[in-house]
């Protein structure tokens, strides 16, 4: 039984080490888009309340025809490095299929050669963190071919802060207190009632 177990284990180990396929690499994308947004450096936005405007378009310094393969543009909300520290679930990885930097989609639009813009109310499930905006251009096969972002290559400039909702509500707090009180009081009630019953039957 032990030997078959060890054989099975080693077979599993071997198959575990097989690599999975890679997706598109971020480093292979060209930064041909210019993305600008209304947030200024260090500005604080409230989730669910504040709006921001993002505009994007092809960088005119690139030769005409570079955008021939672009079919859709997706603008995403991305974590700045300071919000990625000690948080492996937001890690930047070169392989785009594994990259977790940009987790929120702002807008997806078909590509057009003129500049476009979009006004977005920051959603209520966006957590408190520091962000920048990035737009990806996709081809007809929905594979990333180019990008543009509001910050520099080191992701150090033009970052802004979003203050997420707390998720707490007064009604929830009150319900919580009521249920807790019920629990403690009913326990005390039972205990006292049983003690009284035991005492009265003992006295009989």
């Amino acid at each position, binding site marked *: *039984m*032990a030997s078959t*177990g*060890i054989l099975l*284990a080693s077979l*599993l*180990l071997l*198959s*575990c*080490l*097989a*690599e*999975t396929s890679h997706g598109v690499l971020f480093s292979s994308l060209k930064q041909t888009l210019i993305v600008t947004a209304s947030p200024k450096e260090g500005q604080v936005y409230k989730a*669910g309340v504040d709006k921001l405007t993002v505009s994007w378009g092809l960088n005119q310094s690139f030769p005409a025809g570079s955008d021939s393969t672009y079919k859709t543009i997706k603008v995403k909300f991305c974590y700045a490095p300071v919000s990625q*520290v*000690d*948080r*492996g*679930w937001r890690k930047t990885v070169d392989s785009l299929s594994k990259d977790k930097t940009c987790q929120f989609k702002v807008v997806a639009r078909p590509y057009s050669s003129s500049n476009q813009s979009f006004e977005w109310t920051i959603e*209520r*499930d966006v*957590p*408190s*963190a520091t962000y920048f905006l990035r737009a990806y251009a996709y081809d007809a096969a929905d594979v990333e071919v180019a990008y543009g972002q509001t910050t520099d290559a080191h992701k150090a400039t033009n970052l802004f802060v979003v203050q*997420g*909702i*707390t*998720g*707490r*509500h007064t009604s*929830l*707090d009150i*319900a*919580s*207190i009521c*249920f*807790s009180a*019920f*629990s*403690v009081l*009913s*326990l005390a009630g*039972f*205990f006292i009632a*049983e003690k009284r019953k*035991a005492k009265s039957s003992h006295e009989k």
Partner: protein
Amino acid sequence: MAEVEGEPGSSMHGVTGREQTFAFSVASPIVPTDPTAKFDLPVDSEHKAKVFKLFSLANPHMRTFHLSWISFFTCFVSTFAAAPLVPIIRDNLNLTKQDIGNAGVASVSGSIFSRLVMGAVCDLLGPRYGCAFLIMLSAPTVFCMSFVSDAGGYLAVRFMIGFSLATFVSCQYWMSTMFNSKIIGLVNGTAAGWGNMGGGATQLLMPLVFDIIGRVGATPFTAWRIAFFIPGCLHIIMGIMVLTLGQDLPDGNLAALQKKGDVAKDQFSKVLWHAITNYRTWIFVLLYGYSMGVELSTDNVIAEYFYDRFNLKLHTAGIIAATFGMANLVARPFGGFASDRAARYFGMRGRLWTLWILQTLGGVFCICLGRANSLPIAVFAMILFSVGAQAACGATFGIIPFISRRSLGIISGLTGAGGNFGSGLTQLVFFSSSAFSTATGLSLMGVMIVCCTLPVTLVHFPQWGSMFLPPSKDVVKSTEEFYYGAEWNEEEKQKGLHQQSLRFAENSRSERGRRVASAPTPPNTTPSHV
């Protein structure tokens, strides 16, 4: 001839001691049935049930069993309720990996102390009030999750909810007042295993509840707080059921029966001394930390691991994580059963080998789980890891009753505490730092399991031997009576306080395996059937 009920192999004369640690029922000649008692199940002279009828709700024995394991299950649900929702909570509260890891450590640490206190509470107030007090006083801590707004609050609330795991003690204590000691092994093992399933059920329940609340319209950062009301309400419901439907003892409640006082109490200091000076206690404390301990740690990290590593949806990660904990339904009893089977042929050596094999295989599959790059292989490795670790828990408690007769309670308590301590330690070392990924943490934990299981090779019983060594050649020292009698001094032996230990020693001769028939009569003891 008296009729024989129960499992095959139970001797008519009851003296070959082939009773298993886990048995479904006790035959009549071995433990006589009290004919005057009017209970649904046959009972012994203390009115403890002799039969374990799983699907009955008969008052008071089986009803107690079900109330007890479901209360323990509920506490497991609430202690690990945060784990499958961590992907949402970590964004709401802006947690770092250290914060999440520390909260996980806190969730299992609280019960180390509360379990020690619970023993005393059960002695004073009875197991029914012990259970009800804990479960109803920890309900407010579950509701407190709605107030949490930062890492500190999250850690504090998880620590306080973790106190409720002391229901393990009230559960086992309550079972021992209701069931005969010959079947208590299986009863307690089943209750413990099914209670532990709560750690798996919660991974299924909480994402489901979260999903439903989200569909009704709540935003995620509020929905997870509302979801915690479900385990909180379960606490209140179970507390009320325990108070209204439960009773401390087969004949009634504790206060009424405390007047009797016919159980001679042992000296706590002596019992503690014999527990802590027996080296085997500490080896099993370590071992349980790497079977139960890693099970608790995995309950805390596995859902988040699958969510992040394989990009699954929250409830998919929850379903996979749930299969880990739910395997307890059969895996833990299987471990006990395997231990008993091995003991039938090879005695205590078989039990020790069974434990080593199960726990080491669990460790190997844990290494595979961390290294797996594809989802099907990861799930497969996780299932095998869960069976290995949980069966090892069951096998551990197949051996613990034999370490000591006098100090069994304290040794069981220390072993249980070792489980929680092991869990806290592994979470602190492997899952609280950003130095390596969770996947690497799992593999390293697997390596540590394999290493920390090796000390079982050092466990040696003079009367039965160890994994590699035969029993002692000394005629006196190689008897069970000598080993269990050594816990009592001459004065206590004169008073006859060691009689129960001697009876146990005689029954434990089954741990010699197939060599029972050739066991010599020990020189200084009088056989009880003369």
